């Protein structure tokens, strides 16, 4: 399942709302984090690890960066990892198996130690994979570099130290059941019960549908927005109690959301603020893996717990893992009681454990062993917790079978085939025989589904186009326009939806349902929005039709003829370029290019077909009129191949009325013609603007002097300067009509004569 988490992609951070869960951690990210953890080791320590792996050290002063690279790269080889794992003792291999079982890439040391103690293993055994570099210690980067691994293990009980696994090691690590199983029952068991394990899948599918319709938003602190929290908690399917669990499951909606995040069915979007539904395409193909993925997600789940946190209680992850691993150590047909299992856990758990402390860590100083204190609750409290874990969530997930001891009536448990498969002590469970006809499609668009016919694959298939509305012994779904449209968006067709319903229905399909699905589908085909289509442009309709006829069949969707000369193709890879000659291409994600030339009149623009694109003609006709080729030309500058467009007062007015601004027109000329707005267009815009001051007409007399120097003299001399208006040229100047007589007199006084035409 490409979008869901695969067993190779482990999440280093436990999913949880309060922790702002990130997207699934891909292998390369996990590998980088592993190397980053090693870089915090001292060089000599890394050299020792490198040597333990069988490598040679050339430098006398190994650098942490290069040594971390070498160790990380060496572990990329499965053969190397296998040989190193073979050197481990069974308890150490078992510790690696915890990563396999929970699909976590990094686990707090405290959690690992608690699991190992509950299984009767000594935590110091973790030194084995650490010394071989199969695990790496992750500490606060502000702390000193790591050298003494044993000391770090001891310190890890007090500080937030995590152990990280190399992704290749995680792939090869196998879950091992502990030795010395809990006591089994001699008297046998009555009323054995187990679930089909489908309800968690249906709840996940329902959550996916809700998030798909409207993503869930997260606040800065990582909590859901109130609206979304209310939406999820008020949803009968997500928040309704399970009718199957033998012990109530607290906050089922929170559990579903946490599992959805851990399995990758719900993802954080790139903003980190919204939880969105993952692509659903591959559900039906890979649904068979989902029960195991959900089980692994639950085993490593920290953000949701079966019982309230009490200081003296065990943490959920160690309890879940230890309880299930002890059950895995039983022979397949054997049962044990919750009391026996609780006794067994107590017998293996040490009676004293270091108390938590907030004392600062003092580098170089070994901490004195803290005062021992009893940490375990009484057996009855452990039994309570086991009830919550085994008869609640594990039973709900289909991992545990429950019954009653024949003699005493006490609760007895054993693993189901799915549980044994998840714990790696049994093969993949055989799917139960399915009832093909398990649906009742009703005329009111409701569907009753009997769970005996359901499988993970069918849950996925139905979830594509019908909404889950009720979960119980019988399940209910509803078909609506929205749900059908969602199905169509996921690639279903009206025919495939109706076929799925018909194939699994007891009765013929109600006509109202068939008609509605067909009608909704047809209506959707009326409007198609292409975000990134490819258009193939031909010289004419004939060539377009010829190409369409020769288009290879069976290679994706057929091209759609568009306008006179185009074929629309959804996937460019289906275009048979071997039958076409590519003359040019244009990528519309790139900025538009210059393809117009402004003609000398300033009002006509000519389009260069070689540089044109689809948008160019559409853009220009927003403010210009297309000139037909046969129109007699006012000028002689048009070439027949160049479509021309004329900007007129009417075309400009129409553009302004439609909301096109003068600024947009200016930008268009810069972008498409590579020039500023022609003055003729500016003139028209000014005319349309109506705010320009009126053009003033006045009578001026032009005086023409024999030389520029004489005119300079007139402008400089105080007696003549005031009579002159603007200078029109080197030797010409304008004079207002009423100034000509005073000027004439002044010039005469200066000894110059002025001749006036016609005077």
């Amino acid at each position: 399942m490409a979008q869901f988490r695969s067993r190779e992609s482990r999440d280093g951070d436990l999913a949880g709302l309060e922790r702002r869960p990130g997207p699934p951690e891909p292998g390369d990210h996990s590998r980088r984090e592993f190397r980053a953890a090693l870089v915090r080791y001292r060089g000599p320590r890394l050299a020792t690890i490198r040597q333990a792996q069988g490598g040679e050290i050339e430098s006398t002063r190994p650098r942490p960066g290069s040594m971390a690279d070498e160790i990380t790269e060496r572990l990329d080889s499965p053969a190397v990892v296998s040989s190193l794992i073979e050197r481990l003792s069974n308890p150490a291999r078992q510790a690696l198996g915890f990563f396999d079982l929970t699909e976590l890439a990094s686990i707090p040391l405290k959690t690992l130690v608690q699991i190992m103690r509950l299984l009767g293993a000594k935590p110091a055994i973790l030194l084995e994979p650490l010394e071989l570099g199969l695990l790496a210690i992750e500490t606060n980067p502000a702390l000193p570099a790591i050298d003494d691994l044993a000391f770090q293990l001891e310190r890890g009980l007090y500080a937030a130290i995590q152990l990280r696994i190399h992704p290749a090691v995680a792939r090869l690590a196998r879950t091992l059941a502990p030795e010395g199983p809990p006591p089994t029952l001699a008297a046998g068991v009555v009323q054995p019960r187990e679930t089909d394990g489908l309800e968690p899948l249906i709840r996940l599918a329902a959550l996916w549908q809700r998030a798909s319709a409207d993503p869930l938003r997260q606040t800065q602190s990582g909590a859901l927005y109130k609206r979304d929290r209310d939406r999820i908690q008020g949803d009968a399917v997500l928040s309704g109690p399970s009718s199957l669990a033998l012990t109530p499951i607290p906050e089922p909606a929170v559990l579903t959301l946490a599992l959805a995040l851990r399995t990758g069915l719900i993802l954080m979007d790139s903003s980190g603020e919204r939880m969105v539904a993952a692509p659903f395409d591959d559900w039906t193909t890979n649904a068979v893996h989902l029960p195991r993925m959900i089980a692994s997600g639950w085993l490593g789940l920290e953000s949701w717990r079966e019982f309230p946190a009490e200081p003296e209680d065990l943490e959920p992850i160690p309890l879940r893992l230890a309880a299930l691993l002890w059950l895995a150590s039983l022979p397949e047909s054997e049962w044990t009681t919750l009391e026996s299992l609780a006794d067994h856990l107590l017998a293996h758990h040490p009676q004293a454990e270091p108390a938590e402390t907030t004392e600062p860590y003092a580098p170089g100083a070994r901490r004195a062993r803290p005062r021992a204190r009893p940490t375990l609750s009484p057996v009855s409290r452990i039994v309570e917790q086991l009830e919550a874990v085994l008869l609640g969530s594990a039973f709900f997930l289909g991992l545990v079978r429950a019954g009653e001891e024949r003699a005493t009536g006490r609760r007895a448990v054993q693993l189901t085939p799915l549980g044994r498969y998840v714990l790696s002590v049994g093969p993949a469970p055989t799917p139960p025989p399915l009832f093909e006809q398990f649906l009742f499609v009703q005329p009111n668009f409701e569907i009753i589904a009997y769970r005996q016919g359901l499988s993970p694959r069918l849950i996925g298939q139905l979830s594509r186009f019908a909404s889950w509305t009720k979960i119980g012994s019988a399940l209910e779904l509803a078909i609506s326009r929205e749900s059908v449209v969602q199905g169509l968006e996921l690639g279903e067709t009206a025919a495939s939806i109706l076929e799925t319903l018909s194939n699994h229905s007891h009765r013929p399909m109600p006509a109202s349902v068939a008609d509605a699905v067909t009608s909704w589908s047809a209506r959707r085909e009326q409007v198609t929005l292409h975000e990134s289509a490819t258009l193939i442009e031909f010289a004419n309709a004939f060539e377009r039709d010829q190409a369409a006829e020769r288009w290879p069949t069976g290679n994706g969707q057929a091209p759609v003829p568009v306008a006179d000369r185009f074929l629309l193709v959804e996937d460019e890879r289906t275009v048979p370029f071997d039958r076409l000659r590519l003359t040019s291409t244009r990528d519309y994600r790139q900025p538009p290019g210059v393809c117009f030339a402004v003609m000398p009149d300033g009002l006509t623009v000519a389009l260069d077909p070689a540089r044109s694109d689809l948008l160019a003609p559409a853009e220009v006709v927003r403010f210009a009129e297309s000139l037909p080729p046969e129109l007699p030309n006012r000028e002689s500058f048009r070439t027949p191949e160049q479509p021309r467009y004329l900007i007129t007062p009417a075309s400009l007015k129409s553009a302004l009325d439609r909301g096109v601004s003068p600024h947009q027109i200016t930008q268009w000329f810069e972008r498409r013609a590579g020039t500023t707005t022609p003055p003729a267009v500016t003139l028209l815009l000014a005319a349309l603007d109506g705010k320009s001051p009126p053009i003033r007409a006045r009578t001026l007399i032009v005086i023409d002097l024999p030389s520029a120097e004489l005119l300079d003299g007139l402008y400089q001399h105080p007696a003549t300067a005031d009579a002159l208006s603007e200078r029109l040229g080197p030797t010409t100047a304008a004079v207002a009509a009423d100034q000509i007589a005073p000027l004439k007199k002044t010039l005469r006084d200066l000894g110059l004569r002025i001749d006036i035409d016609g005077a």
Partner: protein
Amino acid sequence: MANSTARIPVKVHRNVALVRLGEPILAEELLARKTLSRSVLGRLSETVLLIESEACEAVLDELKRMGHTPRFVKRDDAQRR
């Protein structure tokens, strides 16, 4: 007479954002909607409107508001198919 096996010259327009409609009247409907017409760059034919590629999501939302249930062919869909 044209050679039927000759390679036909074409120009390829890539990454074009457009709305394809079943009937011309739907295009008129869309163009009459101010919020939509702002994003329409041109009309390739009676039933094909070219739109701004940045406005795809907004156009999709507006089409839904109008009561349509458009088929949305995303860039990723086209590349994955």
